[in-house]
């Protein structure tokens, strides 16, 4: 059986695709910012002196990393609405993304922090730096510089995983694709177009992260290597 491709049938929907791609990017941007904050706090929590805080952060990270994202979405989205808390879908989708990526970020940032030699911290203490100063200048910034590639790789994977939020009808790229294919009856072409769009988004995001890395880590720019 021969199948006649007809990408022309999708032309009327180009603005829908564009909107979907923009929504995906916006969701990603929110999730990156908030996920990074949660991840860093959680990584600090796992190094804290309080065993309770350590356990709590460890529990969160392990729980999220060992369950599928789609179950987390359903748990949070349907769970919250069952107790009467009806979030707008976009906010709910971002919330689930943040909860999810926060755990992965925490693990990556913690690995980076573990590479900081204890001697560095002792030296900073000997110089009389305050605890926040030590955390920011001696531990966190070099740690982030070292794990930057792993971190941004995780964020790109998260952008791709955001396609799963279409399951609670967040109007991002995949949900747009599902709508378009049900109107145009051109399922195969639609998903090919969307796959190409996701590829473009992934490349775009990688380039943006690379450029941003060059901007905020001068050492990497000048030496070509972190530390």
């Amino acid at each position, binding site marked *: *059986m021969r199948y006649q491709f007809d990408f022309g049938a999708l032309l009327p929907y180009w603005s829908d695709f564009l909107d979907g791609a923009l929504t995906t990017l916006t969701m990603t941007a929110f999730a990156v910012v908030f996920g990074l904050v949660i991840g860093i706090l959680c990584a600090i929590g796992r190094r804290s002196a309080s065993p309770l805080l350590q356990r709590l952060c460890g529990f969160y990270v392990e729980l999220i990393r*060992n369950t599928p994202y789609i179950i987390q979405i359903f748990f949070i989205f*349907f769970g919250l609405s069952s107790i009467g808390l009806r979030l707008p879908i976009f906010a709910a989708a971002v919330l689930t993304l943040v909860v999810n990526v926060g755990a992965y970020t925490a693990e990556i940032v913690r690995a980076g922090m573990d590479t900081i030699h204890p001697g560095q911290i002792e030296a900073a203490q000997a110089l009389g730096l305050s605890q926040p100063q030590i955390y920011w200048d001696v531990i966190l910034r070099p740690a982030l510089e070292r794990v930057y590639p792993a971190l941004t790789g995780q964020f790109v994977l998260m952008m791709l995983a955001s396609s799963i939020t279409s399951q609670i009808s967040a109007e991002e790229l995949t949900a747009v694709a599902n709508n378009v294919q049900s109107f145009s009856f051109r399922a195969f072409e639609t998903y090919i177009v969307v796959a190409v769009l996701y*590829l473009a988004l992934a490349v775009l995001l990688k380039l943006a992260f690379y450029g941003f890395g060059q901007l905020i880590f001068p050492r990497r720019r000048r030496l070509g290597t972190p530390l």
Partner: protein
Amino acid sequence: MGGFTLTHFLYLLQATGWTVVLTLLAFVLGCLAGFLVMLARTAQARWVRGLSGLYVDVVQGTPLLIVLFLIYFGLALFGFELPAIVAAALSLMIYCSAFLGEIWRGCVQSVPRTQTEASECLGLSRWQTLRDVVLPQAMRIATPPTVGFLVQVLKNTSLASVVGFVELTRASQVINNSLFQPFLVFGIAGLLYFALCYPLSRLSRALERKLNGGRRQPA
């Protein structure tokens, strides 16, 4: 409306069985395909390396969900009516092959070059070198990340629910649709996934620690 009963729980357990079946199916197929990808990525011919690199980049840059839709809806157009489990296993196999191929390429290339050179001096063929010298060493390095990746595969089988294959996620959706107790139902489903994934994660970490025994840092 009724409560969550033993029958519901047994239904979830049965669906967990299907999740495991799908995981194993996808993982075994993915390992075979991933091995080929690894061979292609380390091939001598430049175009083979380039082409397989493109394959890896494309698969890693596309959401698994989209790959799943492409296979499920796409192949149907060419006259193959695929059962949901086949479509899911196929797309997970593609996903697996790209990631495992790239992981294993790193492991193979981390075996010191001198090993390959020595085998060449001894007159071993390329295949003999790979089978008897490189692979046994690479496999030791590859085991922890491969077990770690198995966790990813297990979690990603949940996407098969979208095309209607009744595994753990789909089953919990079905139950939730009748009971509407999302915290309870998805909580239990999450715990079942956790019970499968967490031991594997621990195993992966333990294997890694064992491998790095010589370089272990005081914890």
